[in-house]
């Protein structure tokens, strides 16, 4: 990306100039966060006013040349009692806020089950987006309104942070691991996407938008974009072109574990432990094959680290997820690329 200094990139949503105090809300969670925020602002504002007022009033009343009564100064003992009183009040307020904020936080992380999962990859300095049906976008995410959307975010280089202010949602994106983010947009419109974690020269240009559409519009948009392949389909092609099929489908005679139906199952490992084959496991097995070797197999698989992009890994994982347990065993001649696309 070039450092355009004259004009801002055109993918930014339209905004009004002028002074605003609160950001727009576009999800149910945004409303709940704002309620807590306003409560906090009121409490903190009151406490600040109390402190400033005390300073002003006491400063005026007990100014050096005033005749205010200064007799009967309080004792250490009184001080301690007053302090304990203040401590108790603050403790109650703070613990209340802690409980409120924490339960909200848990709700933000443990979302309802999602209608669809969209893959998002951050790299210097853009957001690459892959929809479940294979549609790809850069710096823009189209989603339907009122549906729970799950985003699987990762990074290809440094730490980025996926930030949707209108949804009050932010998650740091680390290389080498997947993060799940969910939201339910409840208001059609165009909202901002920022990178919030400093990531190098053009950090400030790593922006995009999220377009929330009515269901019908979304379907229309999808069909217009429909030409491109589903990730599972392109994943199947990658599976062949990277030579994975050679060993994992038993064509070359090298023994490698079958991957059909492996997703979500417990896999016995060489050390005697077992692991659930989730996305992280599959990702690791591609870039760090020696990390978790399946019991009964030699650790001979080469690492694909550096040769394969995070986007391609996601497609291969989508393909592996799409495989039925019997896809290969019953009919090895069948073309595996016909594996069903993920719903």
């Amino acid at each position, binding site marked *: 990306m070039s*450092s355009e200094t*004259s004009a*801002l990139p055109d993918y930014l949503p339209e*905004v*009004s100039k*002028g*002074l*605003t*105090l*609160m*950001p727009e809300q576009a999800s149910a969670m945004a409303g709940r966060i704002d309620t*807590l925020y306003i409560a*906090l602002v009121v409490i903190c504002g009151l406490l*600040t006013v109390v*402190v*400033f007022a*005390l300073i002003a009033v*006491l*400063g005026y009343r*007990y*100014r*050096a040349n005033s005749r205010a009564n*200064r*007799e009967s*100064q309080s004792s250490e003992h009184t*001080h*301690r009692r007053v*302090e304990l009183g*203040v*401590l108790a009040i*603050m403790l109650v307020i*703070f613990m209340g806020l*802690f409980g409120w*904020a*924490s339960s909200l*936080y*848990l709700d933000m992380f443990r979302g309802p089950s999602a209608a669809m999962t969209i893959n998002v990859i951050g790299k*210097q300095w853009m957001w690459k987006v892959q929809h479940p049906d294979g549609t790809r976008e850069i710096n823009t995410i189209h989603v339907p309104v009122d549906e729970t959307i799950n985003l699987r975010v990762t990074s290809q*280089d*440094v*730490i980025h*942070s996926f*930030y949707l202010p209108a949804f009050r949602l*932010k*998650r*740091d994106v*680390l*290389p*080498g691991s997947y993060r799940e983010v969910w939201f339910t947009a409840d208001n059609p419109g165009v909202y*901002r996407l*920022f*990178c*919030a974690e*400093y*990531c*190098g020269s053009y*950090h*400030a240009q790593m922006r995009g938008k999220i377009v929330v559409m009515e269901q019908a519009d979304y379907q229309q948009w999808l069909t217009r974009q429909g030409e491109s392949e589903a990730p599972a389909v392109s994943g199947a092609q990658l599976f062949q072109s990277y030579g994975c099929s050679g060993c994992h489908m038993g064509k070359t005679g090298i023994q490698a574990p079958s991957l059909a139906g492996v997703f979500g199952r417990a896999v016995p490992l060489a050390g005697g432990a077992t692991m659930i084959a989730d996305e992280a496991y599959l990702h690791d097995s591609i*870039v760090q094959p020696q*990390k978790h070797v399946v019991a009964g197999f030699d650790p001979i698989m080469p690492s694909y680290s550096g040769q394969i992009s995070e986007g391609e890994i996601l497609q291969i994982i989508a393909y592996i997820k799409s495989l039925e347990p019997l896809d290969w065993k019953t009919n090895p001649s069948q073309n595996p690329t016909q594996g069903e696309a993920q719903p």
Partner: protein
Amino acid sequence: MSVATDPRWPREHYLSEGFRLRDWLLTTDHKRIAWLYLASITAFFFLGGTAALLIRLELITPPGDLVSADTYNQLFSLHGIVMVWFFLIPSIPATLGNFLIPMMVGARDLAFPRLNLLSWYIYTLGGLFTLAAVIGGGVDTGWTFYTPYSTMFSNSAVIAAAAGVFIVGFSSILTGLNFIVTTHKMRAPGLSWFRLPLFVWANYATSLIMVLATPVLSSVLMLIVVERLLGIGIFDPALGGDPLLFQHLFWFYSHPAVYIMILPGMGVVSEIIACFSRKPVFGYHGMVISIMSIAVFGFIVWGHHMFVAGQSIYAGIMFSFFTFLVALPSAIKTFNWTATLYKGRITFTAPMIYALSFVGLFTIGGLTGIILASIAIDVHVHDTYFVTAHFHYIMVGGMVTGYLGGLHFWWPKMTGRMYSELWSKVAALALFIGFNLTFFPQFILGYLGMPRRYHEYPVDFQVLNVMSSLGAGVLAIGYLLPLFYLFWSLRFGPAAGGNPWRAKGLEWWTDSPPTKHNFHRIPRVTESAYAYDPTAE
């Protein structure tokens, strides 16, 4: 007026001990070393401040049109690195602390005077490394040096910058060590722990943090340098390393470091408010307990910098809980300062205005810290200008204001001269107004979602950014003014005499400027700190 004939001007004092350069550069007198530090941190402060002004100038307009993106990134990195490690961390301890702690405990010098001088040289060496990094390409990692950006993507000036910070870390370790030993071993007869001024307590607590936290920063910076230089990395995700481990180790130092910065300011403010209210500090014991518990509990809250970084949600909630707890002693302290005014006899001198500004700004900074500790909200405002505003309220609104207040309060003691009463009040007010104008709009910006470290931004954020930049101009005046009238006072200020504020505390028992060994006779302490009487006079 000629001070030579003024009876309040001592015939012999530490400033008259020798005027050659080597008398300064090879001195082991804690008072002269304090001046060495004062000169160096002032230079660094204005260096960092210039970077800040350029940042604010850039942000007047939404597009990045004043400087290039890379220059902007180097500017805020320079601002952060210089301000945090070369100004805020040493500021009060190395200048006022160095000058006053031996006098406040009634000693002739710190326990290890040569170590004290050495730590200034280490500081200077570290500063040179960092400046070399700036000249040799500029560092663009931000002051946090987050991996893998710093280890694998940024330019190699990172090595020099990290080495500079590594080196300056040892300076603060040695200073802290010196203060702790001095406070433990060198108190004057009769000066029990609970008769110590809160300034000494605050610096003692600060020193504990310096000694216990700084080495972890050293080790993590060493790991960065080793990763860049030798290629043996432990943060590289491709090897199964974890960039988050860096953040854990980094914040294990850098969160307590916030308390290194603010605790001495709290100590200064306690001295000033007590003196100009002519009253003992409200709840002395409570203040001591608060200081010490901030120092200890400050060590177990670092995870609140990583709420959205990908640490486990349970660890996040645990760190949020501890963060709420560590806010309690700060709340007590704020309350106690305010309560000290009650039934006092208050004069609004410049130091007092600074101190009361500190209390106000620290309150706002602290309470917005509560908003940030509320973990669900932090998800939204983390890495936005809300955080920027919050920590500037603590570090600039709190710490720098406290530092300037202390400098004005003890300036007569350090130099033996008084400064302009009028101009100092103007400066203090300019600082309060300019500061709020600069940083209050940033809270709103942050909640609106403007991320930190942005070289350009959407147009609807402009109004608030312009307000902020205007405030920065006022603030700059507030910082430049003291430079002029304090310098002026060095030559033309009237002699102050031993105790111009009629303050309590051992440092006021001796001449201004003090003699080489501080006291003509080691004092014997018979009363508690702050034995002021508001009913008198």
